[in-house]
């Protein structure tokens, strides 16, 4: 079959069973858009800004586990997309990005809308390709999907010059791909796994710490089985929420900078720590010197060898596919001649329960002013804990993570690594397309939402009835919090003045807008919003401006050096 490069690009998406492409047309991709026009297998979602195309495709991947696909033009199309590419890269999200490029003879001549796309994106992609000849296009697309979805996943960009998309060649999509320079590991080292299981069985104060890798690797059920079989305490990272159910009594809450008192203390005081698909990053374990405890042994399962012993030295590294490794571990636990030390475990749980009694997430509710935590609790109730929740970045993100109890994986979509404001709304669109019948809530703030607010238009066009839960405190809340705690209450540029009337704004896009100022109205408004199943509802909650996120570990401090409330300031 002889096809143009543009037709080949689209055919490759069909071969990869890609249902949606999120994108924005422009000069260098006109042939590709022409090829899209002439088929009906791949549906294109026209966003209002390329950043949103990336976030929406990214969230589609996070929600489904399938690679997200975005299509942007050269030059500004690509530079607008970079934030979204970096967001996906930091959170290891499988994506394929197709970008247009100026025609090959014009490359390097500062042509109109030319940028060095491969150069600009190189540090924030898993890999990228510039396709110089149409004959290479199909095999390159195959490689792109393979690299993006295997090993530690990540975004892969394919840059297609305009003439390449115009040229014609014989199309033959490769069935398989092999690259001598890329062979991701699967099976973990059996000896190491045995050692790990033995260490786990002998533990007196065990702790299981689960990260986003467990969700990306679709291993939540195995993590849950392991934690339940052993009876050990478990914490999830921000990226790992939902990997182990939050309503289970063995869940001690999220850990880290805004983690629970009990989770952080258990991390520090355990004698055997099992890390599953987590990477000991600065927001999770704080200062690595402080985190070090003499005698505590650490087992680390990760698919990426470079994640192991990067910030924290570990005793038993296991590099491998999480499903294979956990299956092997579960089998060994079952066959283990030694059983867990029940007495030691009982004492350990007593200790943890004492920590729990601090009730570190307790807050003082008010009848006068809406507390943001209360909104999240009511959101949880209104959706029976079964919505897909996206968020932007800041205080609202942390409150959503702390107060919405995620029991299932792929329900909590947020930019954990890069911390990208503007992620929430386009992410909600991607998730809603993936699951048209599920309630999707975007928890956001009045600052974050304005970074991609233009997507209200996209929601209208494609009938994506997401619910926007805007915790409006008229501040860049997290910046304000740090300024209060670390910069002597000097609130430098952290207020949000001249805000739009979000109700009218929503209405102007054809959506439903609600402003909620009274705590008594929170529950009713949420119920009403979620009953409007086919409408976008923008819920603008005017919340307490002074509320801070606690517990809090200051940047650079030790994990146990927590501020538990205003009394600690």
């Amino acid at each position, binding site marked *: 079959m002889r096809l143009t490069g543009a037709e080949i690009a689209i055919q490759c998406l069909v071969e990869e069973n890609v249902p949606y492409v999120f994108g924005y047309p422009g000069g260098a991709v006109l042939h590709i858009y022409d090829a899209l026009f002439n088929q009906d297998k791949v549906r294109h979602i026209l966003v209002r800004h390329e950043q949103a195309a990336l976030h929406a495709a990214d969230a589609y991947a996070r929600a489904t586990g399938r690679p997200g696909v975005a299509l942007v033009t050269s030059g500004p199309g690509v530079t607008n997309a970079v934030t979204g590419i970096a967001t996906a890269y930091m959170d290891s999200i499988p994506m394929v990005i197709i970008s247009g490029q100026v025609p090959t003879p014009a490359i390097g001549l500062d042509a109109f809308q030319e940028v060095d796309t491969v150069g600009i994106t190189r540090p924030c992609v898993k890999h990228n390709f510039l396709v110089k000849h149409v004959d290479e296009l199909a095999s390159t697309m195959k490689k792109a999907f393979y690299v993006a979805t295997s090993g530690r996943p990540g975004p892969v960009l394919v840059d297609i010059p305009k003439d390449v998309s115009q040229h014609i060649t014989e199309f033959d999509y490769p069935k398989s791909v092999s690259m001598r*320079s890329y062979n991701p590991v699967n099976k973990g080292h059996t000896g190491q796994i045995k050692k790990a299981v033995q260490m786990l069985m002998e533990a007196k104060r065990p702790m299981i710490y689960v990260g986003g890798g467990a969700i990306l690797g679709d291993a939540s059920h195995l993590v849950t089985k392991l934690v339940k079989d052993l009876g050990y305490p478990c914490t999830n990272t921000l990226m790992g929420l939902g990997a182990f159910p939050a309503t289970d009594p063995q869940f001690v809450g999220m850990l880290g900078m805004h983690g629970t008192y009990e989770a952080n203390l258990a991390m520090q005081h355990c004698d055997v720590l099992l890390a599953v698909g987590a990477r000991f990053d600065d927001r999770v374990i704080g200062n690595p010197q402080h985190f070090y405890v003499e005698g505590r042994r650490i087992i680390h399962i990760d698919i990426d060898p470079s994640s192991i012993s990067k910030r924290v030295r570990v005793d038993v590294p296991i590099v491998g596919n999480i499903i294979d490794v956990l299956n092997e571990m579960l089998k060994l636990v079952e066959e283990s001649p030694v059983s867990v030390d029940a007495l030691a475990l009982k004492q350990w749980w007593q200790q943890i329960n004492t920590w729990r009694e601090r009730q570190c997430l307790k807050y003082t509710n008010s009848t006068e002013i809406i507390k943001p935590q209360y909104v999240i609790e009511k959101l949880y109730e209104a959706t029976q804990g079964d919505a897909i929740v996206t968020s932007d970045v800041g205080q609202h993100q942390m409150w959503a993570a702390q107060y919405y109890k995620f029991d299932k994986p792929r329900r909590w979509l947020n930019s954990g690594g890069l911390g990208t404001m503007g992620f929430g709304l386009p992410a909600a669109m991607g998730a809603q397309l993936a699951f048209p019948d599920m309630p999707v809530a975007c928890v956001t703030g009045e600052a974050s939402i304005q970074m991609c607010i233009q997507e209200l238009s996209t929601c209208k066009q494609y009938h994506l009835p997401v619910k926007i839960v805007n915790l409006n405190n008229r501040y860049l809340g997290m910046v304000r919090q740090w300024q209060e705690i670390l910069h002597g209450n000097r609130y430098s540029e952290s207020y949000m003045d001249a805000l739009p009337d979000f109700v009218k704004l929503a209405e102007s896009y054809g959506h439903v807008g609600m402003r909620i100022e009274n705590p008594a109205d929170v529950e009713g408004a949420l119920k009403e919003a979620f009953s409007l199943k086919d409408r976008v509802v923008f819920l603008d909650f005017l919340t307490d401006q002074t509320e801070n996120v606690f517990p809090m570990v200051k940047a650079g401090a030790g994990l146990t050096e927590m501020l538990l409330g205003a009394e600690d300031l």
Partner: protein
Amino acid sequence: MRHILSLLLENESGALSRVAGLFSARGYNIEALSVAPTEDPTLSRMTIVTSGSDDVIEQITKQLNKLIDVVKVFDLNEGRYIERELMLVKIRAEGTDREEIKRTADIFRGRVIDVTDRTYTIELTGPRDKLDAFLEAIDSSLILETVRTGASGIGRGEWILRV
């Protein structure tokens, strides 16, 4: 500690910038880097001289291995190896200096590869220390220009780096 890393990578445009970009993005030291295609034209061989603690070197090798274009990474310091660097040095050679410079070059087994009535250009190969020692042996005011390739390294005996 100083380490010599030997890499085989796909001989493709952009491969070099991926390696160089990795070092600058992650703040790793890079003392020297040399690269050229191998007997298999689809592969390039790169030698990187770097330094860092054992932890840093471990991260560097892991991060290099993660690059899709990198086929293999060897830390030559893990075994016995030979290191050579080529230097071309142009020296002001006039009057009584001429004989002295020639003699010093002979001692270091350097070869004079270009001569004018006022200059010598000397070719010298060896490990880094030897090239440094030669430069120290010459009056620094006479050194007009030096060009060094950076180290190339290869394992001894049966220790062979190939795909």
